[in-house]
């Protein structure tokens, strides 16, 4: 509190003033004023988590990818527990095509197993290439966020364009990975690559 206040108000008044300001903060809390400012990193992560959830709804998988009508979508996130936790929170209680979603936090050394979506966070393209080589099995939508993600074999690659989260798509990689992307998703993409990269 400023020196003005200290000089002008006796101690009990200063305490009361402090309480008054605290009360103002409390009153403002439901309106978002007292909440901490989310960092840019957190917001970017939250937006990407929302996109990953959305991608499932715009991707067609072979029927053989699911055991039965109640088989969940399995989403793997490699080497990023914070992102896996964010995605788990995001999809909690949500369904895509009447299927629940299970998020797995994967270690880099771990075989991913059967997945419907594999997200490899991080901007190290060499690491992405290595992980993709190990992960190639079944119909899986691979999503990355490194600069040359599509060149490494990813189907969807996040990028920041004009401060916004956008994504590029490789249709060739989608074919190779045995998944079909809806035209609706293609219209929102930043760039859609049809042939070899």
């Amino acid at each position, binding site marked *: 509190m400023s020196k003005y206040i200290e000089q002008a108000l006796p101690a009990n008044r200063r305490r009361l003033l402090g309480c008054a300001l605290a009360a103002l903060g409390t009153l403002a809390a439901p309106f978002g004023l007292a909440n901490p400012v989310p960092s*840019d990193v957190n917001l970017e992560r939250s937006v990407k988590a*929302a996109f990953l959830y959305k991608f499932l709804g715009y991707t067609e998988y072979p029927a053989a990818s699911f055991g039965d009508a109640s088989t969940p979508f399995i989403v793997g996130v490699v080497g990023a527990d914070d992102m896996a936790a964010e995605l788990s929170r995001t999809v909690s209680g949500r369904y895509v095509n009447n299927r629940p979603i299970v998020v797995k936090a994967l270690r880099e050394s771990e075989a991913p197993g059967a997945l419907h979506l594999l997200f490899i966070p991080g901007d190290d393209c060499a690491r992405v290439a290595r992980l993709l080589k190990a992960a190639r099995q079944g119909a899986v939508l691979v999503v990355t966020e490194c600069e040359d993600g599509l060149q490494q074999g990813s189907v969807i690659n996040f990028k920041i364009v004009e*401060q916004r989260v956008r994504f590029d798509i490789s249709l060739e990689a989608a074919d190779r990975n045995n998944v079909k992307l809806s035209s609706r998703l293609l219209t929102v993409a930043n760039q859609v690559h049809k042939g070899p990269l």
Partner: protein
Amino acid sequence: MRISLLPILAVAGTTVLPACVAITSSQPQLPLIDLTLEQLSSIVVTSLQRPRVQGVLPQLALAARGNAVHLSLAGARIASEH
């Protein structure tokens, strides 16, 4: 010197809350997951992003001179003198 803060609280409360409601009601808050692909693509995520009402509380300033306590809030000046 007698300074009553109750009038300040009362006036500030009625000033702050309607202002907040007015600001937030124009931007309904949906969970990110419920936004469309286009809406997600339009969210600014890097350093220029600021919370929607930031700028209100930082302008909260208090000053006491003599027997007066002045509470300045977002340009509004509220004073109580006894």
